[in-house]
């Protein structure tokens, strides 16, 4: 089997670190990573606690395929109650940290309590210690990794850290690993900051055992050969999407006032790959996470003559560049078509530990507040926070990263920001989490997916893409969203990435790998039921946390203001028609609560 069957429990209040056996009954029911982490969280914690209180727990979880030879087997997740959403948070990352944690011998690390002083967690196989973090507290993610790397002199040690955004409890602070990969969404970095935990440093040499390695490797090779459509993703990364959404009129622009951005050609893959007037090319190369055979990551350089960095040589190096979501949020959402400015804001997100989607969404909401005069230069400290201003994007991103002035308001997230200034309808969010780069009017299925997602608006928890690109009719969308939510819940619990699904793999390929790695028989029925169980468990968490049907909704703009162009021209999102069907398909009552027979069928009662 590919589980390590061990949990590391770290109590920051007492300073005790204990190794415990993994509950294998739960592992067989919830697989790993997202599912298993959520199960432990719900079993051990009252979902009604304040997300930033000492009672909240932070679960760092790998999946059974994390650290194995399976392609993309480097995924890991952070499960906690999210301070951005007050709902269950599960934030997924790649890089090399997750595999290293698994190789150190752990399926899960459960972090509880709160340290009196700033600490970091150092793990080398079974040697575990909490160390004084005073030399790195107050430092950026990049500085922290550099200092600790030097201290331990081990180039294979991996780090997951918060930056100043997490320390300052920015509501969408993330946990950054390997310098530019991140458990990005819902504010999991603020939870880490609230516990005075700066970094998890890990080195593992235990390895991952498999009951039948020969059979497993045959499966890995066979499945790998079926990933036969990855060239586009390797060459252009996820940014390829920006021309697609712009063409169909589903690229949220200027806080969703528009659905098409006239500046897309300055942000798209061609712009990233073509030398500018100074001969500078933004894209340096692509990058891959542990075990990945796709390599969708963008490694980029900012033009050193650009105003954002011309006097800052520390930003002249190559680092994690714009992906589709950051290009949308730090570009189109703010009306900014300056690829270097958006890349710089993205660098700040990696360096200080912020989610670029929520940062861009919050700045876009503030720009709309500024546009109507609800906030002025008096509030912003003299910044003209106008749509399209690259200078404003750069300055306000720096202020948010450092928790300075009006940046503290941006750090609250768009929901709290727009409530503070009297225009809550300007928050393009669900459950407080900002939209990803799709508009729910031209993509009706995505609208339903945003509204029903357990962690708030998100593009990674359902797969209505093909259906939405083909039709704006809503017939069948509820089933597509429900079924894909369940399937993705399973994949997110395996230790694998979702992107092979766009590069040639089908659900059967994921299943074959899990079946090859884990004990027992895993068939398609079990896969789907496991995914459905995980989705319903997350729903139970949210209901106990105080969320309800009222939170399964979209901003007024998406429900009442028709799109002006594109395939959704003249349409609003028909959520009210899709939601009852969705609840029925889920086996939930009219208020969105799982019925007793649904819970019984899934073993959740």
């Amino acid at each position, binding site marked *: 089997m590919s589980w390590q069957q061990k949990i590391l429990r770290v109590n920051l209040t007492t300073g005790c670190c204990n190794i415990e056996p993994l509950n294998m009954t739960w592992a067989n029911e919830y697989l790993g990573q997202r599912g298993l982490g959520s199960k432990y969280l719900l079993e051990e914690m009252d979902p009604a606690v304040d997300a930033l209180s000492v009672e909240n727990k932070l679960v760092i979880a790998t999946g059974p395929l994390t650290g194995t030879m399976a392609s993309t087997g480097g995924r890991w997740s952070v499960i906690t109650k999210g301070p951005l959403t007050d709902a269950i948070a599960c934030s997924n990352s790649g890089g090399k940290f997750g595999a290293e944690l698994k190789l150190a011998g752990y399926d899960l690390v459960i972090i509880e309590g709160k340290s009196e002083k700033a600490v970091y967690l150092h793990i080398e196989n079974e040697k575990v210690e909490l160390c004084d973090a005073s030399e790195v507290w107050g430092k950026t993610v990049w500085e922290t990794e550099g200092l600790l790397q030097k201290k331990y002199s081990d180039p294979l040690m991996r780090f997951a850290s918060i930056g100043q955004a997490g320390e300052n409890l920015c509501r969408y602070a993330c946990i950054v690993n390997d310098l530019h990969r991140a458990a990005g969404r819902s504010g999991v970095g603020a939870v880490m900051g609230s516990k005075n935990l700066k970094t998890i440093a890990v080195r593992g040499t235990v390895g991952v055992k498999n009951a039948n390695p020969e059979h497993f490797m045959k499966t890995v090779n066979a499945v790998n050969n079926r990933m036969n*459509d990855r*060239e*586009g993703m390797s*060459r*252009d990364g*996820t940014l*390829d*999407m920006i*021309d*697609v959404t712009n*063409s*169909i*009129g589903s690229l949220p622009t200027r806080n969703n006032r528009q659905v098409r951005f006239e500046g897309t*050609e300055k942000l798209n*893959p*061609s712009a990233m*790959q*073509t030398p500018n007037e100074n001969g500078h090319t933004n894209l340096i190369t692509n990058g891959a996470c542990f075990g990945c055979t796709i390599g969708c990551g963008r490694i980029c350089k900012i033009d050193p003559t650009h105003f954002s960095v011309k006097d800052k040589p520390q930003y002249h190096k190559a680092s994690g560049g714009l*992906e*589709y*979501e950051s290009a949308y949020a730090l570009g189109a959402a703010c009306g900014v078509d300056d690829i270097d400015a958006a890349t710089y804001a993205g660098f700040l997100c990696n360096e200080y530990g912020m989610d670029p989607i929520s940062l861009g969404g919050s700045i876009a909401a503030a720009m709309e507040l500024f546009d109507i005069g609800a906030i002025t230069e008096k509030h912003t400290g003299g910044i003209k926070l106008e749509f399209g201003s690259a200078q404003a994007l750069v300055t306000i991103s720096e202020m948010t990263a450092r928790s300075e002035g009006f940046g503290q308001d941006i750090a609250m997230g768009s929901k709290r920001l727009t409530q503070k200034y009297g225009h809550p309808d300007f928050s393009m969010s669900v459950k407080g989490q900002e939209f*990803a*780069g799709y508009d729910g009017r031209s993509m009706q299925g995505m609208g339903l997916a945003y509204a029903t997602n357990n962690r708030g608006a998100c*593009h*990674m928890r359902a*797969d209505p*893409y*093909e259906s939405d*690109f*083909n039709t704006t009719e809503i017939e069948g969308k509820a089933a597509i969203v429900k079924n894909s939510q369940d399937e993705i819940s399973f994949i997110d619990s395996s230790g694998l990435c*979702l*992107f092979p*699904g*766009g590069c040639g793999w089908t659900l059967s390929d994921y299943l074959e790998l899990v079946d090859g790695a884990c004990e027992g028989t895993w068939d398609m029925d079990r896969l789907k039921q496991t995914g459905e169980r995980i989705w319903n468990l997350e729903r139970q968490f949210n209901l106990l946390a105080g969320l309800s049907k009222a939170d399964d909704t979209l901003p007024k703009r998406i429900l009442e203001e028709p799109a002006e*162009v*594109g*395939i959704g*021209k003249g349409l609003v999102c028909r959520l009210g028609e899709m939601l009852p069907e969705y609840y029925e398909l889920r086996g939930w009552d009219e208020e969105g609560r799982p019925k007793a027979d649904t819970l019984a069928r899934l073993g959740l009662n």
Partner: protein
Amino acid sequence: MQITIKVFGKLRHYMPAGRSAGNYLLNFKLGETLEQLLKKLPLPKDRPYLVLHNDNKIDLDQLSLTPISENDEIIVLAPVKGG
């Protein structure tokens, strides 16, 4: 006459200019349909794609019934997901 077609998404890599901006200039005669025009592009036959004609989505079975004019905007996309 000439017309510019925009090709985006994964389909871009099947086009002669490879990594260029995705704009392709094609010759056409009056009375030609979208289907005839698209046959001039090296699009993969086994891949579903999406065609927008003057901001309207054209079902694939309607391509042969859709005439083109000189200043039309034509976009061809491959359905993609994720991001």
